[in-house]
């Protein structure tokens, strides 16, 4: 199995005087999911943003290895799959146009994204600006898995999903951890989730 590990140590982040992350440490290895829980404002989203590379921590270390090499923050940013409530797409484009655009940026075929949308029953000819919150969440999943990432960072992954949507995305997560070579995940949620293959939990609650 390809060697993939995510290790973060004593990660700190503050916004002005507000210290959101105060030395958070964790490790995830292939086939595993790390579940991060905590109340609102405890730093779950901030931690995932730091792991994704869209937010720089004020202190600590984040090491993500694929194969024999640690990826730098720029490489990590382009490799992760990321689902988050504040992730938005172009409302002037259709679902299909959004996926095709980001597939061209990622230099991959959009077929995988379309296949996922088909499984999640999201029509591709809808303008992204007309999607409901649950539909937008399905699009986020398709976008996150477009390039077959090894590392999935999921912030409130089942938010706004109805029962079929949640079942479909749970299945995608299960497939990712079981079938994607070197696949691993970090999942952030306000409360505990029943998810197979959660091997570690990190509670940021105070």
């Amino acid at each position, binding site marked *: 199995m390809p060697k993939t590990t995510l290790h973060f140590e004593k990660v700190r982040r503050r916004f002005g005087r507000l210290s959101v992350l105060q030395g958070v440490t964790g490790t995830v290895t292939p086939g595993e999911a790390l579940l991060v829980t905590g109340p609102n404002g405890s730093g779950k989203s901030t931690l995932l943003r730091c792991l*994704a*590379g*869209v*937010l*720089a921590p004020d202190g600590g270390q984040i090491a993500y290895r694929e194969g024999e090499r640690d990826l730098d*923050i*720029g490489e990590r*940013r*382009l490799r*992760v799959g*990321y689902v*988050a409530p*504040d*992730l*938005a*797409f*172009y*409302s*002037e*484009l259709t679902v299909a*146009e959004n996926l095709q*655009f*980001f597939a*061209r*940026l*990622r*230099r991959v075929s959009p077929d995988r994204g379309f296949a996922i949308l088909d499984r999640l029953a999201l029509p591709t000819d809808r303008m992204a600006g007309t999607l409901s919150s649950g539909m937008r969440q399905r699009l986020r999943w398709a*976008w996150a898995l477009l390039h077959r990432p090894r590392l999935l960072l999921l912030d409130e992954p089942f938010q706004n999903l109805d029962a079929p949507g949640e079942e479909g995305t749970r299945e995608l997560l299960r497939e990712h951890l079981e079938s994607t070579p070197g696949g691993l995940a970090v999942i952030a949620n306000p409360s505990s989730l029943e998810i197979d293959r959660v091997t570690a939990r990190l509670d940021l609650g105070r």
Partner: protein
Amino acid sequence: MSPLASTWAAEALAVFAKEWRCELRTRIALNTLGLFAVTTLVVAGVSLGPLGVAKAQGSALLPVLLWLILLFSVAAGLPRAFVQEEETQTATALRLCATPSALFCGKLLYALTLVAGLEVLITPLYVMIMNLQVARPGLLAAALAAGGFGLAAGSTLVAAIIAQARSKGTLFSVLSFPILLPLLILAVELTRNAVVGDPPGMALPQLLLYDASVSIFGLMLFPVVWNP
């Protein structure tokens, strides 16, 4: 072309195509630029008109006015290129997908085509309304091309810098002044030379050097301001 370069170019072109697709569906920048430019042109035309400026003064004044109209039209419409990404929260998806240099070049290409369209629309109208006699039309075209490139490149760079700031409007004005001032001085001088029939002198090579410098500086600086 090497495979790496071709995929980078494809990425930049994808950004360019996306910008125009969104713009043609919303027409926000087109309407803003066009409306501002036409309005100021009409005001200038009504106030000064073909008989309002003596010929001797016209060659000194009218090139300045043309570039002021272009500058403020661009300032009204171009900063949205990056600001909108932050405001609509599409910037995160872009940060996780796009190569910064390809993103910058795609946005720059979009800005170039917008500015070129603006110049094609405004300049003939301006020449006609102001009854501006241009002795060297080829030099005027070169001034517009080189000056327009600098306007687009400088505005794109400043827009990228201010996109994540709080006081965007103020910051755009403050940052634009030192970046665009040399461009405007050179562009006005070159335009004036075209009107009176003088040779371009050093203004054209200096303007081209400015364009190259701003482009290279933007490519180097953009990844730093774009990513954390």
